[in-house]
């Protein structure tokens, strides 16, 4: 046996985190660049954006759900609210996300499949039937048609007599990452950036408690990026939005207070915790150093997370319950403002009610039994976590510099450069799983030959939902005032042709007239055309 000094304990092949950061056998005090990290609630907020962590307020438990018709989703929402969920998160079907009406031939196979159909105001009214819009916070995972869905939500509140200022919630509205990973783009990048800016600028006055954008790294991560790239791509997109909003006359010290972010948590516990600490510090530094923002409220990096996704397996699906619990603990130790825990069956179907409830209970157990939330940033000061936070920050900055040198996120996306980079990274991740370099229990290690594929009850979509959605669509079109619809759409199209005019008021008028998502998108397409996807590999 060799002597036990730290040097000889280093193994021949260094161990690395999934992002490639070398992990010391034992972390020591001399590795720390800043032995005393600033307290939470103080710039640069490494340890958290609030001085008292979760004592003031727990994170929001927000389970993504929605399927089929508005009636069916409304029943699931009421169930989740009765079970103690504190916010709604609306999943929308692909036709709504891509701007097709449910009767369009491209849309027909997808109506009501991966989320609920919201093609006109009547469906929105049904979706929130019996739910007080002034009392609930609602998050919509919507991007290509985010401005339209936001307008529809505002119109719905108007109809109910709920003051716009009382609305709380989030629209994802992060179009840039759609071009890179999620694919629900419609228009070319630059007019899409205009729609994002329109929404943010309108919302800060009309619905000041509503987050009009949630800049998301989750989808590039789930597609195959590393944790470092997840943050780097997202902050690079964030800079592109900030620049666009400033160009449009927005006051950065003001609009930056409503920016929020959204990420995946995967399985490497400490890297995930360090990722959030590094991102929080980096964003505050960027806001201060690059944009001269001094108001601390505009430096805060507020983020939600989703736990699960591609870290879950169809093999031995009950293992996913454990994975999600570990990931949610990392999210809490990392200081997330809202958490969505995937259901264990989400790798292969829309969750059953049983699985959805268990996912929510996982968060409640962490919140109320584990004690992790009692003290702020409980891992702060750990030699390893502080070292990893510093290293993550360096690596994130290096990738952001690469994007900057390329010409920024918008350019890198228009050219397909980021898309291609992500595809190659995803191939690398897949090959590591194939070879067993990355262990996935139950899938490439510790498999069972006798494993049955299915677990528990299977979730079944109502096969008739699509037909009913189409029938309601036709009925709404038949009874609305066609003249009023045409006039509202004409005004929208004209405004889209005028640079710098905010389109959201026109979209709200269209929604009030029961114009459909497909009609509004069609009018904007007349002015802007479609995005031409770079398909090179």
């Amino acid at each position, binding site marked *: 046996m060799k002597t036990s000094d730290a040097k000889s304990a280093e193994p021949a092949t260094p161990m690395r985190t999934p992002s490639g950061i070398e992990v010391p056998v034992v972390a020591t005090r001399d590795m720390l660049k800043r032995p005393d990290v600033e307290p939470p609630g103080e710039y640069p907020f490494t340890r958290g954006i609030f001085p008292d962590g979760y004592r003031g307020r727990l994170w929001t438990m927000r389970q993504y759900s929605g399927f089929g018709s508005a009636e069916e989703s409304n029943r699931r929402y009421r169930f989740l609210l009765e079970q103690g969920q504190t916010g709604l998160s609306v999943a929308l079907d692909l036709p709504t996300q891509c701007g*097709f009406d449910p009767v369009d031939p*491209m849309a027909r196979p997808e109506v009501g*499949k991966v989320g609920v159909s919201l093609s006109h105001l009547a469906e929105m009214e049904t979706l929130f039937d019996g739910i007080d819009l002034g009392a609930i916070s609602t998050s919509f995972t919507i991007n290509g048609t985010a401005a339209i869905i936001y307008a529809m939500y505002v119109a719905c509140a108007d109809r109910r007599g709920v003051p716009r200022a009382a609305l709380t919630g989030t629209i994802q509205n992060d179009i840039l990452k759609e071009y890179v990973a999620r694919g629900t783009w419609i228009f070319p990048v630059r007019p899409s950036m205009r729609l994002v800016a329109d929404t943010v600028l309108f919302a800060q006055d009309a619905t000041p408690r509503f987050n009009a954008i949630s800049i998301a790294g989750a989808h590039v991560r789930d597609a195959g990026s590393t944790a470092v790239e997840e943050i780097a791509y997202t902050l690079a997109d964030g800079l592109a939005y900030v620049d666009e909003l400033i160009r449009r006359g927005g006051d950065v010290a003001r609009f930056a207070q409503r920016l929020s972010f959204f990420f995946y948590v995967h399985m490497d516990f400490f890297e995930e915790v360090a990722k959030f600490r590094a991102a929080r510090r980096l964003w505050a530094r960027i806001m201060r150093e690059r944009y001269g923002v001094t108001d601390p409220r505009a430096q805060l990096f507020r983020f939600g997370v989703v736990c699960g996704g591609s870290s879950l397996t169809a093999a031995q699906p009950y293992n996913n319950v454990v994975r999600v619990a570990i990931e949610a603990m990392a999210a809490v130790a990392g200081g997330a403002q809202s958490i969505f825990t995937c259901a264990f069956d989400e790798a292969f179907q829309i969750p059953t009610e049983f699985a959805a409830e268990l996912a929510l209970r996982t968060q409640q157990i962490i919140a109320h039994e584990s004690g992790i939330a009692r003290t702020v940033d409980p891992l702060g000061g750990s030699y390893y976590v502080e070292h990893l936070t510093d290293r993550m920050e360096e690596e994130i900055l290096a990738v952001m510099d690469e994007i900057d040198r390329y010409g920024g996120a918008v350019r890198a996306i228009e050219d397909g450069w980021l898309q291609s980079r992500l*595809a190659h990274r995803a191939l690398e991740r897949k090959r590591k799983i194939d070879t067993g370099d990355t262990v996935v229990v139950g899938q490439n290690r510790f498999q069972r030959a006798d494993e049955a594929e299915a677990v528990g009850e299977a979730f079944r979509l109502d096969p008739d939902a699509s037909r009913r959605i189409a029938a309601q669509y036709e009925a709404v079109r038949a009874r609305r005032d066609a003249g009023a619809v045409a006039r509202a759409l004409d005004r929208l199209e004209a405004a889209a042709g005028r640079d710098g005019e905010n389109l959201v008021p026109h979209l709200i008028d269209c929604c009030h007239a029961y114009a459909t998502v497909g009609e509004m998108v069609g009018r904007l397409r007349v002015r802007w055309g479609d995005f031409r996807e770079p398909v090179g590999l």
Partner: protein
Amino acid sequence: MSAAGADRPLAGKRILVAKPGLDGHDIGAKIVALALRDAGAEVLYTGLRKSPAAIARAAVDEDVDAVGLSVLSGSHKELVGETLESLRALGAGELPVFVGGTIPAEDHGELRGWGVRGVFTSSMRLEDVVAAVAKALA
């Protein structure tokens, strides 16, 4: 063009990788496209949001040896069925078609029954996917 060998079992083959419908999850299609290319194939990727008719037309016009369809939205039955129908209408009903994505095990048999030559899910090893395609095209 180099001859097919152990490393390049798909040398000389042209393969169309396509995304039918509105599903935007393209990373699986791209990973498989890259793996097929590494295995020697010339790969054409359609990009997102193509109609089954447009995919069938591209397959015929480009004179490909096989078509891979990627669907993760749950609409695989409709979209695969329509693509097969469109291929038959163009006289290309014999063209080998493969399907990948989130395809529940219970649907694999049905798709194969329609003539689909292989159904691939994300947990399958890439070399097994390549081998299955190579075997079907041998």
